[in-house]
């Protein structure tokens, strides 16, 4: 199985008002293609910081982080953007859909950023919305959808351009148990593929069973990586 993410001794310190907070203090982590990795740990232990660095939207202070064999730090600004646009899908706790765009328009945004014509992109977005069970709600604005439905739109947006990495930060925390479970089922079903990797940050113990492996973090370190009863899909 080939390596998708390779993190080595990552250190990240935030400075606010002259106060230094060490968010990551030497993190090593390897994640394979086809894997669904969960990051868990107490609040403030550095989970969000770590996936931000993996996804290339935050720079580490030191250490190496390779994504599909590429290092963001050695890319030009423009290449970083291109690389992110093509390779990464995001799912957020707060959904972060654009409130004035309907579901289909929201889902088409990554395709448009990748240079696809709007009409084609929206057609494709509708197909993917159908995959996540929202084929009837393509014209709805986010405010007209339930939390679970909004998160499905967000998942469709994270998948639509077929990225190789999908990062999710607390994708179920804002949802009730049932919707959270549905969202995870959906992710597992449509997002996990042999040529893709999913990294999910969560507090939510109820969804741990969906993970292939779970990395436990504390105080800027990874303290334990446990193998789940293998959920690996043979695809």
């Amino acid at each position, binding site marked *: 199985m080939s390596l998708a993410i390779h993190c080595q001794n990552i250190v990240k310190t935030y400075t606010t008002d002259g106060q230094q907070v060490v968010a990551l203090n030497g993190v090593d982590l390897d994640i394979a293609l086809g894997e669904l990795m969960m990051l868990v740990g107490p609040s403030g232990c550095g989970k969000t910081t770590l996936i931000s660095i993996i996804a290339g939207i935050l720079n580490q202070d030191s250490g190496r982080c390779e994504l599909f064999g*590429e290092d963001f730090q050695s890319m030009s600004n423009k290449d970083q953007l*291109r690389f992110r646009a093509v390779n990464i899908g995001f799912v957020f706790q707060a959904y972060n859909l654009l409130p004035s765009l309907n579901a289909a328009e929201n889902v088409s945004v990554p395709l448009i950023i990748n240079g696809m014509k709007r009409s084609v992109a929206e057609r494709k977005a509708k197909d993917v919305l159908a995959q996540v069970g929202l084929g009837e709600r393509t014209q709805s604005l986010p405010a007209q959808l339930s939390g679970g439905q909004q998160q499905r739109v967000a998942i469709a947006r994270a998948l639509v351009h*077929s990225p190789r990495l999908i990062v999710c930060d607390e994708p179920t925390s804002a949802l009730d148990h049932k919707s959270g479970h549905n969202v995870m089922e959906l992710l597992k079903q449509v997002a996990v593929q042999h040529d893709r990797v999913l990294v999910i940050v969560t507090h939510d113990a109820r969804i741990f069973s969906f993970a292939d492996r779970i990395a436990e973090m504390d105080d800027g370190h990874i303290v334990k990586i446990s193998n789940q009863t293998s959920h690996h899909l043979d695809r």
Partner: protein
Amino acid sequence: MAQVQVRTQWLPINGIVYTLDSDENIATQSRTTIHREPQTMNHIALKMLMGDKGKYLGIVMGLTFASLIMTQQPAIFVGLMARSYSFISDVGLPDIWVMDSKVQFIDDIKPLQETELYRVRGISGVEWAMPLYKGLLKVRLADGTFQTCNVIGLDDTTLVGGPAVMLEGTLADLRRSDAVIVDIDGARDKLGKPSPESGGKNIPLKIGDSLELNDHRATIVGIAKVTRTFQSQPVIYTTYSRAKSYAPRERRLLSFVLVKVKAGQDPQELIERIRATTGLAAYTQDGFKTLTYNYFMKNTGIPINFGITIALGFIVGTAIAGQTFYNFTLENLRQFGVLKAMGASNGSLLRMILLQAVLVGSIGYGLGVGLAALFGFAMRHTILAFKMPWQLLVFSGAGVGLICIIAALISILKVIRLEPAIVFKS
């Protein structure tokens, strides 16, 4: 639920991976297309803007207000300033005005000796030269009160310099004895006879009515339309010799000598010759207008007053529109952050903000200018001065444009400095 059908191939070029779309539905249209440049996100920018109706209205209203103030106030200013020389325009026909060298503007009368008229007539290149009397005289009204009027005395035979528009009677009627022509606004208002019932409107003067100028009887033979002047006193036209008899006895009564240039004669050359020969000042019609206009610009508080109002309009407009626009951007910062995280470049976000600024700017400008024009139209029959030449529209357009640029710039700076990592903050 079915497996996602979307498949993408990966094509490393120069070490960078580009998508090559091979989805069956789309393949026919884009099989050979390797997408590199992002498509425009204009529609996203517009939806973002319109999505927040309250803010959108706030921004547009701020810009409308600024545009209105920056159009309407200068329009009144330009209108007022044009009044300073409207009499010169009304006289029209003569090419050159000759006057005392110390005259600073049209109402600054420094009378000449009658002989100057004959000296000017003797200068070569002069087609004709006519006298003009212009002075403020007290008119005794029917109820015994006095009203200061602008009395214009025209050359007895040619009547050069008379009003361009006669509403009743003809200019030639001035040749009758004691004849005067009054302007319609004066006739209706300040010279009108008091209404029999108290508080009622004045009864307008009409042909056949009489006035008393300096104990001389004057009979109204015509009503003229004249362009409003600065002082907006009633205007009374009569002949030059009759004007002299109305005026207090003085040695000098000739206000201006009006000159027509001979065909083929360069006016500027003639002006030099008149100045050299007589020692008087001489200006072309436009030159005299400029002199008058400049005098009012320099010596009255008008430009400063309007300047302050216009500057306030600009500042308040910038404050309202700039603030709301900036707030709008701040509120949408997370959306911009999401786009950034997803790989949108600063350049494309900048274009989005510029488009938003240009749109609200154009709408605000259009509404403001429209309202100003409407205001001018509604006031067209009143005493209010209002003129909206195209230069003014360029001026207020530039003002609104500047406000939008300022508003967009501070927003753009904020978005460029934005860390995409904020998207994970809840």
